[in-house]
């Protein structure tokens, strides 16, 4: 027998099929199909955790997803270690290593339990009030300590070795929940031929049939009917049945997301299987059959191990064959607990007494209790319990006083009635309505194409539930156009219809500030805390929730919300619906990050873009840097070279001989059409109608507010065709920006835009020997300086393949940019390299490109500009046409602030000590001796060591910078102050002789 509390003949598990697991290092035997909770209870283990704030001993409260107490750590290995798992839903597998949480040094003796004794000081809002001052201490002292003391489980430190997968699914009808209602609805929908998905969070379908043994459906045992119906559904081509699958989020337009736990219950899962599978379901119609959750009674010390929900005790008995105690007390305000008592009684467990808070229980259950000889005390309350690690007595009293007595027990089961699970309905943005008669919030106004059926809709009675579900299933299926099949009929009967239910604190929960009558077990919120919150001025339920943390634990108030609300309403003297409900949010139960992140991790986190020459660059030792999604060759170190040495060598080589550079990542847009020039006139500050075919121009693009948005060289290929280049990072947004204006502001222009970034491989050949390198390879283009001057473009051939050859330069040297169709990129590169290398040229990367352009004072948009810089600030005001009457940004440029004196302007900086290289981003001041905070004049935008100049160079944005030429300014650093001289931005070849050579 696996566990002393297993009752022979009870439950649905097979006694011969056992599994072993450890809990806090001790080995236990379980049966296949056990949850960790049922297996522990079978072995007499009630103490499984410590509460969050007071570290009070806690046991197993429920048998389902709503469990707030029994949180455990499940470990397969160091990487596959999951904290905060609810023991009531984790299935036992052979070899599982389970640990309790939030205790030190051990579960039975926990030092943090001192918080329970200190609890008068830990009232609601305590943290907010006590740890306010001094402010600095919050970060350094209070918060780390509070977090360490109040932690839940410990996250694994190793990367997750499991994998997760995702599916998109479409269906006519999605049915959430496979209890009696969900199965009935799915059956009715499926019979019409509709495509149906039925999901349920438990390993087996059945819902409440797990515990309600009295149910007969079509003459069959209810649970057996459920399994047979699920099998029948699963065999239909138009139906998908998913168990161990939680619908955790209901989003717009019937988009429901499910988490399917694929391997969580397996001892040795096939590593090829995903641990979880996320289903993103778009359903034409949704049927919610999510059932209801039983509430606990709110009374003093209602949190001791051994105190649990009546339906949970019934589940452990009828499904798992486990008795939760030998002498069980019952405390209830609802008939359902009676049936739990009857089942326990019939299984041989002694029922100490049924204590009913009501004066009038349901007549049926009362009569049955009497005929079984169970003592029923109506109009009584449990006012206290005793027992440290497990409840050992309950003290009861007559409502209104008197009749006080203490009864020895070893378990106490309770029910304050049922809370319909309207979570998904509420997530769908449906509005709940309060039913004063039953004290339940029920679906009111629907926002989406869905229907709630059964307990989650407040429907009473088994046959009524079945009929409602069948009708809804068929109605929803028919609404999607499914026409097959006829009426499905199901006859269901059960022993008793339940009456009763209460919300809030029962008698005996007391207005006494020292009584701990728990509402929210995980967050240790008591009835008195809600009252305190109201007394302290919190009148909104949201404020009460934040102040007390009620409903903010991982169970998200599944048990506590209604109690908290009722107590707040009572204290405020308002009706419950007037106090309002807090918003239900996804996820319904915790979902592991792995499932949500899914495949988007590691190499698949973000796409990687590589240029056509990437393989060559890799083979030639390039170090790469990430530029957006691109991998760009950064520098090409030779054996033994540091980055600094490599870049210095590359910079010298380009200016002395030549260099070859991969510029393929530049954004490229083909602008074509009779109005192409007019369109570019509007998009750029420059004039384009004056540009002759075969020539290029450097263009500046502004936003409407007058600030620099992008820049690049534009070549006119023909009257009606331009080859536009953009910055590497700016390509998509520039394309979007152009499309936006073309489609919405200037739709009268006949222009077509095509992104050609990835169609062209671009090889920049720069330096005194650039022409000599490419000359023999080029066909049909005269590349002499006279025929092909700086800023020209020609179409022709190179190495026998078509090219758009640009004469342009981002280095200040004679330069060519060879554009060839991407597929030829590497071959042409290799041909150019075969000529360049013997001449002593080098391949260079982005770092050298940056240094060389800074030596010439060429700006990089996004580095030397920051979205608040005009072309005039950046020293490229010459590119702004004075003749045009319109371009994007023309009005913005005239704004008072943009023409004001003293704007930050881009200038060059030379350090007084030529060997010092400034830090990019460093601040610049006029007087280094002024008190802190100093008045900042600007900051360094680009800074490098220039081997060509023999000193460091920098660009900086400085207030009134152009009027400060020759001034000495200062860059204060933590360890020293660096003196700099303001210069113009061109550090090399000021007259441009090299460029035009």
């Amino acid at each position, binding site marked *: 027998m696996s566990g002393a509390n297993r009752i022979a003949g009870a439950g649905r598990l097979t006694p011969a099929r056992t599994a072993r697991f450890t809990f806090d290092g001790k080995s236990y035997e379980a049966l296949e199909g056990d949850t960790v909770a049922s297996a522990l209870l079978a072995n007499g283990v009630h103490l499984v955790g410590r509460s969050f704030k007071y570290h009070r001993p806690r046991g197993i409260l429920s048998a389902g997803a709503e469990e707030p107490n029994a949180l455990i750590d499940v470990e397969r290995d160091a990487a596959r270690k999951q904290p905060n798992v609810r023991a009531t839903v984790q299935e036992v597998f052979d070899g599982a290593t389970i640990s309790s949480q939030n205790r030190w040094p051990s579960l039975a003796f926990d030092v943090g339990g001192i918080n329970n004794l200190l609890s008068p000081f830990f009232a609601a809002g305590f943290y907010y009030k006590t740890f306010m001052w001094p402010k600095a201490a919050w970060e350094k002292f209070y918060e780390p300590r509070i977090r360490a003391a109040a932690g839940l489980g410990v996250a694994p430190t190793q990367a997750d070795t499991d994998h997760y997968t995702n599916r998109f699914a479409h269906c006519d009808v999605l049915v959430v929940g496979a209890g009696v209602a969900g199965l009935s609805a799915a059956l009715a929908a499926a019979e019409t031929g509709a495509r149906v998905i039925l999901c349920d969070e438990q390993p087996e379908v059945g819902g409440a049939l797990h515990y309600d043994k009295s149910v007969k459906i079509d003459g069959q045992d209810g649970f057996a009917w459920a399994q047979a119906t699920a099998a029948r559904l699963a065999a239909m081509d138009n139906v998908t049945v998913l168990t161990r699958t939680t619908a955790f989020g209901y989003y717009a337009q019937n988009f429901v997301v499910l988490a399917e736990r694929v391997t969580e219950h397996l001892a040795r899962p096939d590593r090829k299987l995903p641990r979880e599978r996320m289903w993103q379901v778009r359903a034409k119609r949704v049927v919610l059959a999510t059932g209801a959750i039983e509430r606990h009674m709110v009374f003093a010390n209602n949190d001791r191990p051994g105190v649990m929900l009546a339906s949970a005790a019934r589940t452990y008995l009828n499904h798992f064959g486990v008795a939760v105690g030998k002498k069980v007390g019952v405390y209830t305000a609802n008939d359902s607990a009676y049936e739990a008592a009857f089942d326990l009684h019939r299984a041989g467990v002694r029922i100490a007494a049924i204590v009913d808070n009501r004066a009038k229980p349901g007549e049926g259950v009362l009569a049955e209790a009497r005929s079984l000889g169970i003592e029923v005390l109506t109009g009584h309350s449990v006012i206290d319990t005793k027992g440290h690690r497990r409840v050992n007595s309950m003290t009861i009293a007559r409502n209104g006083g008197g009749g006080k007595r203490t009864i020895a027990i070893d378990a106490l089961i309770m029910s304050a009635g049922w809370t319909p699970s309207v979570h998904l309905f509420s997530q769908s943005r449906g509005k709940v309505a309060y039913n004063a008669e039953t004290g339940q919030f029920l679906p009111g106004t629907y926002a989406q194409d869905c229907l709630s059926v059964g307990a989650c809709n407040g429907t009473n009675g088994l046959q009524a539930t079945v009929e409602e579900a069948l009708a809804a299933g068929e109605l929803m299926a028919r609404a999607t156009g499914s026409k097959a099949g006829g009426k499905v009929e199901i006859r269901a009967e059960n022993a008793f219809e339940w009456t009763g239910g209460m919300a809030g604190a029962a008698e005996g929960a007391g207005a006494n500030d020292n009584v701990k009558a728990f509402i929210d077990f995980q967050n240790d919120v008591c009835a008195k805390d809600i009252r305190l919150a109201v007394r302290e001025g919190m009148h909104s339920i949201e404020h009460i929730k934040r102040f007390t943390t009620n409903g903010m634990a991982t169970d998200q108030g599944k048990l506590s919300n209604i109690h908290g609300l009722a107590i707040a309403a009572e204290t405020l003297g308002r009706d419950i619906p007037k106090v*309002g*409900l807090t918003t239900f949010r996804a996820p319904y139960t915790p979902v592991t990050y792995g499932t949500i992140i899914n495949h988007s991790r590691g190499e698949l986190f973000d796409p990687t873009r590589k240029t056509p020459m990437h393989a060559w660059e890799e083979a030639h030792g390039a170090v790469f840097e990430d530029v957006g999604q691109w991998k760009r060759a950064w520098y090409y170190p030779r054996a033994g070279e540091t980055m600094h040495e490599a870049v210095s060598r590359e910079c010298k080589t380009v200016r002395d001989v030549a260099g070859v550079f991969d510029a393929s990542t530049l954004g490229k847009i083909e602008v074509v059409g009779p109005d192409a020039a007019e369109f570019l006139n509007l998009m750029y500050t420059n004039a384009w109608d004056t540009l002759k075919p075969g020539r290029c121009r450097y263009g500046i693009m502004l936003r409407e507010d007058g600030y620099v948005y992008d820049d690049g060289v534009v070549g006119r290929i023909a009257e009606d065709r331009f080859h536009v280049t953009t910055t590497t990072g700016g390509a998509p947004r520039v394309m979007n920006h152009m499309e936006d204006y073309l489609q919405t502001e200037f739709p009268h222009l006949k222009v077509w835009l095509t992104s050609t970034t990835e169609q062209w491989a671009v090889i920049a050949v720069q330096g005194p020997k650039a022409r000599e390198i490419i000359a023999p390879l080029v066909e049909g283009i005269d590349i002499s300086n006279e025929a092909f001057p700086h800023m020209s473009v020609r179409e022709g051939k190179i190495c026998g393949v078509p090219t758009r050859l640009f004469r342009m330069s981002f280095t200040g040297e004679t330069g060519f940019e060879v554009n060839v169709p991407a597929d030829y990129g590497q071959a042409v590169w290799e041909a150019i390299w075969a000529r360049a290398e013997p001449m002593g040229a080098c391949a260079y990367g982005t770092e050298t490109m940056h240094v060389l352009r800074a030596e010439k004072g060429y700006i990089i948009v996004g580095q030397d500009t920051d979205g608040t810089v005009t072309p005039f600030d950046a020293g490229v005001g010459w590119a702004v046409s004075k003749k045009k009457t319109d371009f994007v940004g023309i009005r913005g440029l005239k704004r008072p602030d943009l023409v004001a004196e003293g704007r930050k302007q881009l200038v060059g900086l030379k350090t007084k000590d030529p060997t010092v290289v400034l830090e990019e981003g460093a601040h610049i001041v006029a007087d280094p001796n002024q008190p802190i905070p100093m008045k900042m004049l600007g900051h360094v935008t680009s800074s490098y060591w220039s081997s060509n100049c023999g000193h460091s160079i920098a660009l900086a944005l400085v207030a009134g910078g152009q009027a400060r030429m020759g001034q000495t300014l200062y860059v204060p650093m933590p360890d020293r102050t660096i003196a700099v001289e303001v210069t113009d931005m061109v550090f090399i070849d000021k007259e441009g002789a090299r460029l035009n050579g």
Partner: protein
Amino acid sequence: MLLIHCPYCEEERPELEFRGAGDAHILRPTNIADISDEEFEAFFFLRDNVKGLVYERWRHIHGCGRFFNAARDTVSDKFVTTYKAGLPRPDLSPAPKATETTVETYEATEGVAG
């Protein structure tokens, strides 16, 4: 995830294919270079942050690439309708109010409570 109806593709597609592009029906002045500071301020900077029906520009950027207009309710986050760029603002009656018997969650009453 929302489904958005592209008036050019004439199909509902997942919102991942779309990108918002700000308020609709703001006309760029044809004489923009000559307008006053106040007119430029109104054109470029000033926007309403409406609770309720808003008219917005969207782009089917990972689809047909077209910009279009949409009327969306910022309370329910529902697209009331979408229409082609350049068409006038459609006349839409306000969305029906929830009945009094339903209970508002805090979110819905936010900004209303005194």
